[in-house]
């Protein structure tokens, strides 16, 4: 029986500092963001990316904007 692919949004960042600032801000806001190795397709400068469910993206962007953090890249991936 095969697993159903799970869709995720992945945010990339310019620096580790930005990625960890973002992780802290999203964590404080209760957004389910998980640090992952940046996928090659993301073309992010930082090797740490944040993966989150698509239905959290709008809230995540709002939290990051309030914290003054801008993701430098975004892709969607399927986790199988």
């Amino acid at each position, binding site marked *: 029986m095969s697993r159903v692919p799970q869709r995720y949004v992945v945010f990339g960042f*310019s620096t*580790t500092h930005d990625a960890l600032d973002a992780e802290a801000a999203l964590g404080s806001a209760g957004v389910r963001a998980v640090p992952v190795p940046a996928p090659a397709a993301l073309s992010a400068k930082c090797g*740490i990316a944040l993966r989150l469910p698509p239905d959290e993206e709008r809230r995540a962007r709002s939290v990051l904007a309030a914290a003054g953090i801008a993701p430098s890249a975004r892709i969607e991936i399927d986790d199988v």
Partner: protein
Amino acid sequence: MTGPHARRAPRGRTIYLDNAATSWPKPPGVADALCSAVSEFGANPGRGAYRLALETGRAVHAARHAVASFLGVADAKDLVFQPSCTYALNLVLFGSIAPGQRVVTTSMEHNAVARPLAMLKDRGVEVVVVRADSAGVLDPEDVERAVSAAPTRAVVCQHASNVTGAVQPVADIVDIAHAHGALAIIDGAQAAGHLAVDLTALGADAWACSGHKGLLGPAGIGVLHLAPGFEPTELVAGGTGSGASEEPLQPRERPDRYEAGTLNTPGILGLAAGVGWLAEHGEEQRAREARLTRMLVEGLAALPGVRVLGPGADEPRVPIVPIVHASIPADRLAYELDARYSIAVRAGLHCAPWAHRTLGTLETGAVRFSVGHATTEQDVADALDALAVLIGELA
């Protein structure tokens, strides 16, 4: 050993009065932080997204925020870790001043500034040195005259003197530099931890300090704050764990641009522990240091043949008190204090020949007493008693 002084300061218990060189002992928590950095946070921060690397990265990230907050830095990305204050100052000086430009500095600077400026002078930079007064204090009007005389790239000035403890009028000097379109570069090595520092309010373009002096961290870590918009060229390029590794040039983003190579995680976490102690005890500590410094200034001045250098007891000063004796060489006093009483003080020029030339002590050097968070009134009393005995014997 003879006399009552030997009983008060027996061998085996060092009275450490060289905190201006490096603070010792470190407060509770610093050694633990170093140990946990090695034993628990073994991965390389920012290199890899596995859990151990993330934990290490988070610990360094939290440390950066803690140090930034303690120093009044608005955006922690503007605070970069360096191997030392000297490295930080070299980065700024070599990264922002070019041949043909003009720099105004002061006659009290440490070799961490004086020697890079001497190298820049050899490369065609004009270096103008403003002389401090006989206490080692700068007059802002003298700085203003020097800066206004010709277009100036930068004003480079210490926050406090490592020789006399004098606190310089850095806020005025930053304003003067900016009024004339010059950068303000401040060496905060002796100010950090001893003065309440708010770098956002100060507004300097660059401010650097050691981690191992007043901030009570271990050796091997320094701090550099760069104001937003000031972009000196990096001295060192290499891996940063970010910046798109395939790109040939160093990334422009902070802090990565100025932190090539693996970060000193033990140093950074040890520094954060020292800063954490200061955040809790700093105000009380500064009051203690002021009391002990006054005790030293007044007690030393009362000894026969002793001349205390630097500002008066009521003037702004970090906890550094240098002396010269009319007939006993500085090195002899320092040696005897250590050999007979285990009292650690530093004799010589303190890596600051310009300052000693200003004070008239270039040929003799001075004996420098500098207290720290663990110094007690009894320590200072014992040192004064011991010095009185030595002067009685040797003068």
